[in-house]
């Protein structure tokens, strides 16, 4: 169940900073540990940058989830960019189509509890990550 939801635009580099700060305050709100806060905010930074640079802009939806007694933070990154034709390859460390290190997707996956990526060439990409408390 979604108990709180914040939608933020991702058009420019400065928006990545705003998404990071909002993700941080929600992570604090549900009481994630400092290490878990740092992990999810770092993943948010990588994915938000992907949305701006590779996806040509889009939005982030930040949600607090409640599943019985446990709480979690779910972050969705959506763009209507070119899409990713080879998802398996895109997830590999070191593979990049840009000038980056190619750690964003694979690295972000390692930093959260749940990770899903959907992408359609010519339609766009949506990455969803969740970090549960505990």
């Amino acid at each position, binding site marked *: 169940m979604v108990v709180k939801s914040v939608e933020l635009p991702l058009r420019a*580099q*400065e928006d*990545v*900073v705003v998404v*990071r*700060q909002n993700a*941080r305050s929600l992570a604090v709100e549900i009481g994630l540990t*400092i*290490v878990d*806060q*740092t*992990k999810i*905010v*770092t993943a948010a*930074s*990588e994915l938000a*940058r992907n949305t701006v640079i590779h996806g040509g802009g889009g939005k982030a939806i930040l949600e607090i989830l409640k599943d019985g007694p446990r709480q979690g933070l779910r972050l969705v990154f959506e763009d209507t960019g070119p899409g990713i034709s080879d998802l398996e390859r895109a997830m590999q*460390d070191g593979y990049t189509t840009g000038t*980056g*290190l190619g*750690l*964003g997707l*694979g*690295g*972000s996956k*390692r*930093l959260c509890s749940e990770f899903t990526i959907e992408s359609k060439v010519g339609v766009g990409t949506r990455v969803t990550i969740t970090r549960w408390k505990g």
Partner: protein
Amino acid sequence: MERIPILKMGSFLLVTIQVDMHDQLALALQDDLTSRVVSDRATGVLIDISALDIVDSFIGRMLGNIAGMARILDAETIVVGMRPSVAITLVELGLSLPGIRTALNVDRGMELLRSARNGETGDDGRQIG
């Protein structure tokens, strides 16, 4: 344009990153520091990241670039003050900051820079990567 201030202390340059940097600001710091190494004839660069609550792959790459460029210009770079949670996250992200020397705090970082200048290796110097 917004800039991160660079302080000069003797032959060393000191930077304390206090703000949540967007990518352009990080790139500007990289350029500014590299220029200042030459214009100030600096032999060492100390970057304090104790105020940073995250280091993502972009910032990690910037730190590596600064260290690499400074080295070519005959200056040593030391990154100090990394938070434990940042170190844990960086390693899980897959970023081990190769080629970047680190120290626990500014004092130890300055010691390392001085001893590097004297051709010695500091006892608490740690090379990551």
